[in-house]
C-alpha cells in the first residue's frame, strides 16, 4: 500500500496548475460564459494532453489511468476552467477529434422530461449517459433554448424538452464504467473548488483588518477556516481512494465513487459558501469571484449525479454488503 501521490502525479498537478494560472484566470471563464468558448485556448488545453490522459500511447494518449484524470480534474475544478471538460474527456477515444480539442463534446446524465444541458451551446457533440447505455448526438441537430440567465455565469445552459436519441456508443460494463468516471471526475472538480476556496479565504483572512487586527486572528474566523481545511482533506482522501478503486475495477468501486460525491459535494458547497462569508460585504459583490466558485459548485453538485442520490447509493451498497 502506498496511498499518496507519487512524484509524477505531483508534477502533473503542478504543471497543470501553472498552465491554468497562466491561461485560464477566472476572468477567462467569466468571459467564456458570456461570449462563448475560446477554441484556441481549448486546443491548448488539449495539447497539454488533459483529455487524452487515459488513452493508450498508440492513440496519442498518455497511457495513464482514471487516477491521473482525477488529479487533473481537481486542478481544472480549482481553476474554474470553462467548457465541457468532463464530456470531452469521456469522449476521447470515442469521438473523433475530442482528445485533440478539434471538436468539443458536452455530456449529460439522462433524466425524464425537460433537461438543462451545460456547455451544449459551445459543443459539437453531446454524450448522453443513460442507465444502461451511452449515446452520441450531433449538437447541431438538437432543438433547445439557451437559458438567458444561468446561475453559473461561466457555464451556458441549454434547455431541452427531452433528450434526443442518438447513436449507441457503449453498452453494459463499458457504459457503467463511463458513468462512474463521469461522476468521479465531476467530484474531483468539486474537490478542487473546496481546496481553492480554502486558500482564498485564508489569504483574505490574513490581510483584511478590522478592530485593528487581521480577521484571521479571531477564533470565530479561524475555526471556520479550520473546518474548511478538514473538509477538503477528508474529501480528497475519499476522491483519490475512489480513483484508485475505479482504476483497479474493485468490487467496492461503486460505493467509493458514490461516497466521493457525498464528501466532495459537501466540502465544495460548504467551503465555497464560507469563502463568501469570510469575504464579508465584498464577497457579496458581482465583481469578486467568490460567488463564481459557489455557483460552479452548485452546478457541478447536480451534474452526473447529486449528493442525495449518492448517499442513497452508499446506503444501498451498505445493505448489500450485509446480505
Amino acid at each position, binding site marked *: *500500500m*502506498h*496511498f*499518496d*501521490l*507519487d512524484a509524477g*502525479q505531483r508534477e502533473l498537478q503542478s504543471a497543470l496548475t501553472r498552465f491554468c494560472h497562466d491561461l485560464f484566470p477566472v476572468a477567462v471563464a467569466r468571459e467564456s460564459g458570456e461570449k462563448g468558448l475560446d477554441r484556441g485556448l481549448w486546443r491548448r488545453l488539449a495539447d497539454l494532453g488533459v483529455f487524452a490522459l487515459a488513452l493508450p500511447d498508440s492513440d496519442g494518449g498518455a497511457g495513464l489511468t482514471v*487516477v491521473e484524470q482525477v488529479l487533473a480534474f481537481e486542478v481544472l475544478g480549482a481553476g474554474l476552467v470553462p467548457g465541457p471538460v468532463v464530456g470531452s474527456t469521456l469522449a476521447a477515444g470515442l469521438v473523433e477529434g475530442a482528445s485533440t480539442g478539434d471538436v468539443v463534446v458536452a455530456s449529460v446524465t439522462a433524466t425524464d422530461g425537460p433537461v438543462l444541458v451545460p456547455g451544449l451551446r459551445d459543443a459539437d457533440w453531446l454524450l448522453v449517459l443513460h442507465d444502461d447505455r451511452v449515446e452520441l448526438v450531433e449538437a447541431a441537430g438538437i432543438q433547445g433554448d439557451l437559458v438567458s440567465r444561468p446561475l453559473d455565469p461561466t457555464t451556458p445552459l441549454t434547455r431541452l424538452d427531452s433528450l434526443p436519441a442518438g447513436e449507441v456508443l457503449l453498452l453494459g460494463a463499458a457504459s457503467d464504467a463511463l458513468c462512474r468516471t463521469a461522476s468521479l471526475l465531476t467530484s474531483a472538480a468539486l474537490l478542487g473548488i473546496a481546496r481553492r476556496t480554502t486558500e482564498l479565504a*485564508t489569504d483574505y*483572512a*490574513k490581510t483584511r483588518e478590522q478592530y485593528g*487586527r*487581521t480577521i*484571521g*486572528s479571531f*477564533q470565530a*474566523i*479561524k*475555526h471556520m*477556516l*479550520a*473546518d474548511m*481545511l*478538514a*473538509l477538503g*482533506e*477528508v*474529501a480528497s*482522501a*475519499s476522491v*483519490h*481512494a475512489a*480513483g*484508485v*478503486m475505479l482504476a*483497479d475495477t474493485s468490487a467496492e468501486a461503486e*460505493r*467509493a465513487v*458514490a*461516497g*466521493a460525491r*457525498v*464528501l466532495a459535494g459537501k466540502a465544495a458547497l460548504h467551503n465555497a459558501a464560507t469563502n463568501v462569508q469570510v469575504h464579508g460585504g465584498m464577497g457579496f459583490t458581482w465583481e469578486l469571484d467568490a460567488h463564481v466558485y459557489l455557483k460552479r459548485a452548485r452546478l457541478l453538485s447536480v451534474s452526473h449525479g447529486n449528493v*442525495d442520490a*449518492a*448517499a*442513497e*447509493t*452508499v*446506503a*444501498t451498497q*451498505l*445493505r448489500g*454488503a*450485509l446480505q
Partner: protein
Amino acid sequence: MELKDSEADAQFRKELRVWLAEVVPSLPSPPDPRDRWASRRFDETWQRLQYDAGYAGIAWPKAHGGRGATPTEHLIFLEELARADAPDVGCGFVGQGHAGPTLIAEGGDEQRAEHLPGILDGTKVWCQGFSEPGAGSDLAGLRTRAVRDGDEYVVTGQKIWTSFAQVADYCELLVRTDPEAPKHKGITWLILPMSSPGIEVRELVTLQGEAEFAETYLDEVRVPVANRVGAENDGWRVAMVTLSFERGTAFVPEMLESLRLVEDLARLSERLRRGRGPAWEDAGIRRELGTVAAELDALWALTKRNVTRGESGTVPIVGGSSFKLYYADVRHRLGDLSMRVLDQAGLVLEDLPDLTVARHVEGSLHAFAVSIAAGSSQVQRNILAERVLGLPKER
C-alpha cells in the same frame, strides 16, 4: 498511488486472519465493564494471547520486544481485528499506546527493562496522570507539585480523568518541579507506582453512568528520582512525544468500530418501525446512513494516507488533526442518527428483548468523549488554523 496489499502484506493479513478465526471464538465472554477487576483480567487474557502469537507491541521496534511491524502492517492488524470483532485493547491502552512508546523514545535502559515486558504481556496496567481540574485543554497549566528531597520527589496534587486508575500498577505522571519557570519549562515526567502510600483514587462516574475514569489525589507521595523520564523540567517535551502517539492512530480502532456500528444500525433500521414502516424505508434515514458510511470510508482512506505520509513515525498535523476533528463530528451525527432510528428503543441503556440496542445508545453518549478527549474539537481547530494555515495566534 495504490491501495492494494503487496505480496508480503497479503501474506501477513492471511496469517493474521487464520489466527483470529481460531482465537477470537475461544475467548471467554467479556465481563460487565462496571466490574473493573474482571475487565482487567479479561484484557490481560486477550493481551497474553496476542503476546504468545507474536502480535503484542505490533508497532514497537523489535529491539524493545515488539513485532516491528511496518505502518501498513499495523493498519492491516487494526483492520483485521475490527473485522474479526476482536476485543479492544481495554486497560492496556495507556501502557501500549502511551507509556511504552514514551519509554522506548525517552526512557533509560533500566526503566525499559523494568517496564516494557509487563506492558507487552499484559501483566502490568498503566494509567495517565496528565489532566488536572485546572489543566484540561491548557495542559501546561498543571499544578501538581513535586519537591525534591534527596533521592526522591515528594508529590502533592490532584489528577483527573485518570482512566483505569482503579486497577493500574503504574501512572505516567506530569508534575511541576519549577513553579518559577515559564509554564512549559517547569514540568517533569515521572513513573508513579500506584501502590505508593499517599494515593487516593476516587471513581468518577461519566454521563454514560460508568466509572470509566477516576480522580487521583496525591498527598506527599514519594517517588524515586530514578523514576524520572527525561531531564528535570523537560517533561513537557517528553509529554508531547507521548501525545504525538495519541494523535496518530489512537482513534483508528474505534473509527473502524464505528463502521461496524453503522452496519448494525442499517440492519436494525430494517427491523425497527418508524412511522408507518421500517426506518429503512424513510429516505431521510437511508441518506443519513449512506452519508455517515461514506464519511467513515473517507476517514479510513485518510488514515491510509496519513500512515503513508508518516512512514517515518509521526503523522502530519494536517492529516492527524483533520481526522480527529472530522471523526468527532461524524460520531455525533452517527449518535443522532442512531437515536432517530431507535426511536423509543433509544430511551434505555440496556438491551431489549430480541433487540441489541445498548451499544448504539451508549455510542450516542460516547460521541462527547471523542470531541472532548485528546485535544477537543476546538483545540484541533486552533491547531489546524495556526500550525497548518499559518493564521496568527490568539495572544
